[in-house]
C-alpha cells in the first residue's frame, strides 16, 4: 500500500486515525498498541513474507536491549557486540549475500573453479532503515542514554508506518518521549492542519514533479540498457531529470511521512533542507538525507575519525592529514554508498562523494583568494554550479545499473556520441525549470514549519494576524491535482534501499 494510493488515503488512514483517537481518549496504551498493529498491517500489506523478519528483529532487539540494561559493564560490552553483529549479519544476508556470491563467482571463474549458486533471498522491504534504527537504540542503551520502555512503545518506535519503509531514520530520543506525552492522544487541529499541508506538499513533489521527470530519466537511462548511447543534450537532460526526480521523490516521501505522523500528534524529524541550495559538498550533506548523515556522523564518523586522528598524531603533516582526514572520510562514504544497495555503482557513488568531501576540506584550508573577496557573487555562483554539477555527476553513477553503463553515460555527457536534440518532448525543459524553481526559490517544508528557529519543534504561532486563505486554497488545488494522478501509483525510489 503506497501513501499515494486511493486505498491508503480513503480507507487505511481514516480508519487508523479514528480508532487511534477513540482509543486514546480512554486508554493510551491501547492507542499505542493499535498504532503498532496498523503499522505491522501496513508493512505486511507490502510484503507478507517479510513480516517474520521484522517481527523477529523487533523481539530479538527488545530482548537484547533489556539484557543490556540489566547487565554489568563487561557482559554489557559482549551483549552489545553480539547484538550489533546479529543485526548486521541479518542485513548482510538479506541485502548483500548474492552480491557477495556474484563477485566470488567472478574470482572463481578466473581460477576455473565451480561457481556458487545464488540464493533465493527476498529482501525485506525497509530492512536497512529498521536495522539501523535499532542498532542506534542498542548503542544508546549501552551508553545509559535510554530508560526502560514497554514493548508496545518499542514496537511502535520501530514499526511506526510513516517512517518504517524509507525513513527518516528516527532516534529514540526524538520520538519515544512523545509516546508518553498525553497530548498526542488528543485531537490537535493545529498539528493536523500542519500535517495535512505537509502531506499534500510531499505528495505533490512526488506525483507532479518526480514522476514526470522519472519517465524521462527512465527513457534515457533505459536506452543504454537497450543498446543506444545517449547524446550530449539528452544525457545532460537525463542526468538533471534523475537528480531532481531522486530529490523530489525522496523528499516528497519524507514530507509525507512527517505529515502523516503529525496527524497522529507525533513529530518526526525532517530529512531535507533544500540540498540544491548548497554551495559546497559538505553543505550538501548537511541538507540531504539529514537523518542518515546525522546517524552516520554520530555513530560512525565521529568514532572512526577520532580513532584515525589518534593514529595520525605525531606524524608528518601530510601523513597526519591522510590518516585523520582522507582515510576516515573515504571509508565512511564507501559505507554510505554500499548502504544504498548491493552494487558496485553504489560503492563508486560513495567513493566519489568521499573524494568530493576531502577536496572540499582541503579547499577550505586554503587562504581565500583576494580575487573572490572582490567578487562575492561570482564566488557564490561558481560554488553553487560546482556543487550542483558534482552532485549530478555522482547521481549518474547512483542510477546506473552497472559501472560500464555509467561510463557510457559519462561519455555521452562529454559529447562522444554526438550533440543530440530535444526530440519530441520539449516539455522536459518545463519540468526541469519547475524542479529548479521549487528547489531553489520556494520554501522547503522545514522553513514552512519554523522560520526563525533552529529547533524544529519549538514552533509558536504569532498572535493577532489576519488569516489569508490563499495558501489553504493553493494546498487544496495541489491536493486536487494529486488525486488526479493516483490512478497509476508509482513506488518510491528509496523503497529499494
Amino acid at each position: 500500500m503506497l501513501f499515494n494510493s486511493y486505498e491508503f488515503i480513503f480507507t487505511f488512514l481514516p480508519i487508523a486515525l479514528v480508532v487511534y483517537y477513540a482509543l486514546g481518549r480512554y486508554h493510551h496504551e491501547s492507542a499505542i498498541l493499535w498504532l503498532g498493529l496498523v503499522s505491522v498491517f501496513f508493512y505486511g500489506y507490502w510484503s507478507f513474507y517479510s513480516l517474520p523478519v521484522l517481527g523477529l528483529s523487533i523481539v530479538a532487539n527488545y530482548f537484547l536491549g533489556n539484557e543490556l540494561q540489566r547487565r554489568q559493564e563487561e557482559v554489557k560490552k559482549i551483549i552489545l557486540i553480539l547484538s550489533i553483529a546479529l543485526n548486521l549479519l541479518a542485513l548482510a544476508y538479506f541485502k548483500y549475500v548474492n552480491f557477495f556470491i556474484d563477485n566470488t563467482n567472478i574470482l572463481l571463474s578466473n581460477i576455473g573453479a565451480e561457481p556458487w549458486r545464488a540464493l533465493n533471498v527476498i529482501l525485506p522491504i525497509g530492512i536497512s532503515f529498521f536495522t539501523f534504527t535499532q542498532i542506534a537504540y542498542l548503542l544508546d542503551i549501552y551508553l545509559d542514554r535510554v530508560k526502560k520502555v514497554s514493548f508496545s512503545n518499542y514496537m511502535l518506535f520501530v514499526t511506526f508506518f510513516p517512517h518504517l519503509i524509507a525513513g527518516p531514520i528516527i532516534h529514540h530520543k526524538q520520538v519515544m518521549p512523545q509516546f508518553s506525552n498525553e497530548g498526542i492522544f488528543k485531537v490537535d487541529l493545529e498539528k493536523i492542519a500542519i500535517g495535512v499541508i505537509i502531506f499534500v506538499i510531499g505528495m505533490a513533489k512526488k506525483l507532479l514533479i518526480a514522476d514526470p521527470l522519472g519517465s524521462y530519466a527512465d527513457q534515457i537511462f533505459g536506452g543504454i540498457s537497450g543498446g543506444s548511447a545517449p547524446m550530449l543534450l539528452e544525457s545532460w537532460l537525463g542526468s538533471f531529470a534523475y537528480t531532481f526526480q531522486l530529490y523530489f521523490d525522496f523528499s516528497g516521501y519524507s514530507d509525507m511521512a512527517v505529515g502523516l505522523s503529525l496527524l497522529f500528534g507525533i513529530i518526526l524529524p525532517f530529512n531535507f533542507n533544500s540540498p540544491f541550495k548548497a554551495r559546497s559538498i559538505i553543505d550538501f550533506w548537511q541538507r540531504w538525507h539529514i537523518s542518515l548523515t546525522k546517524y552516520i556522523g554520530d555513530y560512525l564518523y565521529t568514532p572512526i575519525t577520532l580513532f584515525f586522528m589518534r593514529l595520525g598524531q605525531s606524524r608528518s603533516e601530510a601523513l597526519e592529514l591522510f590518516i585523520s582526514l582522507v582515510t576516515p572520510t573515504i571509508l565512511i562514504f564507501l559505507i554510505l554508498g554500499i548502504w544504498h544497495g548491493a552494487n558496485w555503482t553504489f560503492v563508486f557513488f560513495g567513493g566519489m562523494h568521499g573524494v568530493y568531501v576531502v577536496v572540499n576540506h582541503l579547499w577550505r584550508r586554503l587562504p581565500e583568494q583576494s580575487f573572490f573577496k572582490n567578487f562575492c557573487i561570482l564566488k557564490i555562483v561558481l560554488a553553487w554550479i560546482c556543487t550542483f554539477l558534482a552532485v549530478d555527476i555522482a547521481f549518474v553513477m547512483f542510477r546506473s545499473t552497472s559501472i560500464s553503463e555509467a561510463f557510457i553515460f559519462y561519455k555521452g555527457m562529454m559529447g562522444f556520441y554526438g550533440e543530440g536534440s530535444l526530440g519530441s518532448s520539449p516539455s522536459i525543459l518545463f519540468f526541469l525549470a519547475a524542479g529548479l524553481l521549487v528547489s531553489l526559490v520556494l520554501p522547503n517544508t522545514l522553513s514552512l514549519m519554523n522560520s526563525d528557529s533552529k529547533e524544529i519543534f519549538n514552533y509558536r504561532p504569532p498572535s493577532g494576524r489576519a488569516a489569508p486563505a490563499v495558501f489553504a486554497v493553493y494546498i487544496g488545488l495541489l491536493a486536487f491535482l494529486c488525486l488526479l494522478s493516483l490512478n497509476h501509483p508509482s513506488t518510491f525510489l528509496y523503497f529499494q534501499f
Partner: protein
Amino acid sequence: MSSELESSIYIFVFSVLMKPKRILIIIFLTPCLLFALLVCSYFAKPEYFYFRAWEFFDNLIISGPYANTQFLEESGDSSRAYLSQAYTYKNNISINHYGNRVACLEPGQLDHRSILMLGDSQLFGSGLDDNDTLPIRLCEEFQIPIYNGSRLHELNLTSSKEFNFSSVIFTASERLGIKRFCMAAPDFDKASSADTTPPYSLKKSFTLNFLIQNLNYLIGYLQSRFSVVTQLTLPWKAPVADIISFQHTKSDQDYQDELKCALRLNQHYSKKGISTAFVYFPSQQTILRETLLVKSDVTTDEFIPRMVDIMNVSGLSSLDTKRCLLAAAKEGRVTQPHDTHLNGSGMRAMSQCIKESKIAKLFGR
C-alpha cells in the same frame, strides 16, 4: 534570501494556523468545489469531454422514440495521448432509440430485403456527417433498407423481433480484423436467442446509475488528460502524421484466426437463412503506404488481398477493398488526416467498390 525575509514572508502562512479548523475546511473544500465545477461544466457542455461520438451517446443519451441528433466535434483515438489535437471533425451525428446511428432502416420496419451492417468506428462513421456514412451511401446506391448496427447490440440485433434481415455484412478495420466479433462474443453461436436478447431501447436518463456512469467517465477523462500533461515522452500537441506510428503486423496465425471466425459467423447465420459477407476497411498506412513512406512487412502489406482470396476459396463472400481503394487514392486523399478512417470521399469510393463487386448480389443486384 535572508532568514529575516524568509521569516516575514512565511510567518504569515502560519498565522493562518491560528484557525486550523478553517484551514482544514478550506483544504478539503477546495478540491470538492473544483470537482463540482467540473461536473457542472461536464453536464452543461458534455461535447467538450469526448473524442468520439458513440462515447458521448453511450453516457449521455436521452431516451425516446425519436432520433437524437448532436452537432459533435470528434478528434479520434490517436488524439487521446496528446493535449491538443491536430484535427477535429464537426458533424451532425444522429442515433435512433436503439442507440445505433441512423441509416435508412429503423426498428419496426420489417422488410425481407433489409441488410444489417456490423462494424466499428469506421462503419459508425466517426468523423463523418450522417449523410456520409457507408450504410447511407449504400442506401442511396441500392435503394434498399440498410441498418447501421455498429457499436451497440451488434450480433444481438438479428434476435430483435423488430427486424427481418436477409443479410449481414461484417466490416472490420484491417488492424483489428473480423476476429474481434468472435472475441467480443465468444459464445455467440452457442447461446439461445432467448438468452441473449438484450433490452434494445435506451433506458431513461437521470437515474443514479446514469449519474455514477457519467461521474466515472468524467474522473477517467480528467485523469487521462492530466497524465498527458505529466508524461514527458510524447509532445503535448498531436503531430500531423501520428497515425503512422501505429504499426500493425500480421502473422500466419492471424490469417487462420480470421478465417475461423468468419466461417463460424457464416455458419451461424446461414442456419437462420441469413447470408453473410466480409469487408475490410484498409488502414491509411496500407493504401497510402508509398506516399507516407511507411515501413511494412509482406504479411501485413498483403493482408487484405490474401485474406479475401482465402475467404473466397472457402466459399465466403468478400472483396479486395485495398486494390479498389488504391485506385481511388491515386485520385486524391480518401482518408482522414491524423486518423485511419475513410473520409466522405473515401466512403463514396468504398460504396462504389461494393457496387462493382460480387457482394452487390446481396443488395439485389
